[in-house]
């Protein structure tokens, strides 16, 4: 099997599994307990917090463990909104192609009276600091922009955007779920006030994430019922998950440079090969993109059938087609970069990690064109395009 859906989730590393096991077996204490086994769990929690803080250039006291990226996004945005509202500021700036953890939270805030501006992301899926600067108003309380897009992989100019926010005295949050532990992030140097990440995107476990919140910034809890995480996140800590996340993160950060080099080379070979398919287009920025992200649209076919056929060939991929989203509309990300509906339905995302190989890229370069050709041959849309009855949208 070729696993090329690492943006959805990753396989856990041996390091991450080994780190977790003792806390499922002998070290099962509750960190809030006073006895020895409880305190050992507490020490592990402290150590994990320090590790994560180190990887992000943060202080340990600025790291809050959550159930994942979505919870971290919810808490960050809700907290900033509450701080803003107390000061009469109810304007929030974000982008049209955020993850739904951000967009749906903003939608709720909008219903609660907040004014939300979603910036355009342009044809390559990029937001500029100038756009952010121009959008900030007197009553803006938060700018939340993802570090890198989960579907098309475009990496945003986060340090520059954060600098604008700092100068304009607006809280800046970034959903770094796809970027953290994949590309260099330093929250202090990059002026990031709040950042969300998730363990399972870098070979850690599912169900555990992190919210970084700059010291001095008020955080409000979403979950009440205990003093854990400095009263900001009630509930007995997921120690095994937290320890494992920290181990995975350290491993990823220690090997970041070599992983980026290796995965980028695989990605670029895959992109170059798939670009040979006629009437296709790469989605996202050609160079400012996540090392592992490949995303194409192929005209005249639909994404889900592509995924099923690739699955038959042992290749795990993903698509922004409506049929895979369970809704009638294709991916909001592809629509946001201006792809028409009929093109967005024919999207394919292959997301790589450092464990993918050159041989796997070869196999994908053989399988994908074959599948595209096969589906086009039975597509009435393709027939009409070929016969000149309708016009190609993609070159």
């Amino acid at each position, binding site marked *: 099997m070729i696993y090329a859906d690492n943006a959805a989730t990753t396989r856990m590393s041996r390091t991450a599994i080994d780190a977790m096991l003792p806390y499922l077996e002998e070290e099962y204490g509750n960190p809030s307990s006073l006895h020895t086994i409880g305190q050992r769990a507490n020490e592990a929690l402290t150590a994990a917090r320090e590790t994560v803080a180190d990887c992000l250039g943060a202080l340990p006291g600025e790291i809050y463990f959550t159930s994942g990226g979505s919870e971290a996004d919810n808490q960050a945005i809700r907290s900033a909104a509450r701080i803003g509202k107390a000061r009469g500021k109810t304007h929030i700036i974000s982008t049209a192609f955020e993850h739904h953890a951000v967009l749906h939270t903003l939608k709720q805030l909008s219903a609660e009276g907040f004014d939300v501006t979603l910036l355009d992301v342009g044809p390559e899926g990029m937001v500029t600091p100038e756009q952010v600067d121009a959008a900030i108003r007197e009553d803006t309380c938060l700018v939340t922009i993802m570090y890198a897009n989960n579907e098309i992989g475009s990496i945003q100019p986060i340090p520059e955007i954060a600098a604008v926010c700092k100068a304009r005295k607006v809280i800046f949050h970034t959903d770094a779920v796809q970027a953290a532990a994949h590309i260099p992030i330093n929250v202090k140097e990059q002026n990031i006030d709040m950042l969300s990440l998730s363990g399972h995107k870098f070979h850690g476990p599912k169900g555990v994430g992190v919210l970084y919140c700059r010291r001095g910034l008020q955080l409000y809890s979403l979950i009440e019922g205990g003093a854990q995480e400095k009263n900001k996140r009630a509930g007995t800590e997921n120690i095994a998950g937290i320890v494992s996340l920290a181990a995975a993160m350290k491993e990823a950060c220690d090997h970041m440079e070599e992983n980026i080099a290796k995965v980028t080379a695989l990605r670029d070979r895959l992109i170059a090969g798939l670009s040979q398919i006629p009437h296709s287009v790469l989605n996202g920025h050609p160079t400012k993109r996540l090392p592992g992200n490949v995303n194409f649209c192929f005209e*005249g076919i639909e994404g889900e*059938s592509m995924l*099923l056929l690739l699955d*038959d060939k042992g290749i795990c991929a993903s698509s922004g*087609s409506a049929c895979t989203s369970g809704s009638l509309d294709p991916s909001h990300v592809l629509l946001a970069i201006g792809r028409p*509906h*009929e093109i967005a339905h024919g999207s394919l995302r292959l997301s790589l990690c450092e464990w993918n190989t050159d041989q796997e890229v070869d196999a994908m370069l053989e399988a994908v064109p074959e599948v595209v050709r096969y589906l086009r041959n039975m*597509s*009435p849309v393709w027939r009409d395009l070929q016969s000149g009855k309708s016009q190609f949208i993609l070159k």
Partner: protein
Amino acid sequence: MALYSEKVMDHFRNPRNVGVIENADGVGEVGNAKCGDIMKIYLKIDGDVVTDVKFETFGCGSAIASSSMATEMIKGQPVSRLLELTNKAVVEALDGLPAHKLHCSVLAEEAVKSALKDYYDRHGIEYDPKLLPDVSCDACHV
């Protein structure tokens, strides 16, 4: 993937009657590329019998499987039987479809009936318009 029944996967992997009939006696195309699925059915009719049927589909796995199954169900049948084809029968023949994929079976039914209507219209055969209404893209609400 457990999303689909074995039957659906079989018809998706090995679709029956894919292709085009040149000089077809009736052709029906339904759906919309914006919605993500289009089905086109070609009928060859000899006397009162559907002697051949082909389809082309742009769409997801269940759209391809539904078209394939629908063509199997009507091939060799008397023309009048096409009016009786329902999306429910297509779904049953496929051992079920997930709820959000039921519209694919509706499209299959509509494609067959649209081809039948074309056949009737071309050959000046009278029919009850209520049985073969103009198809709109009601299933997808775009």
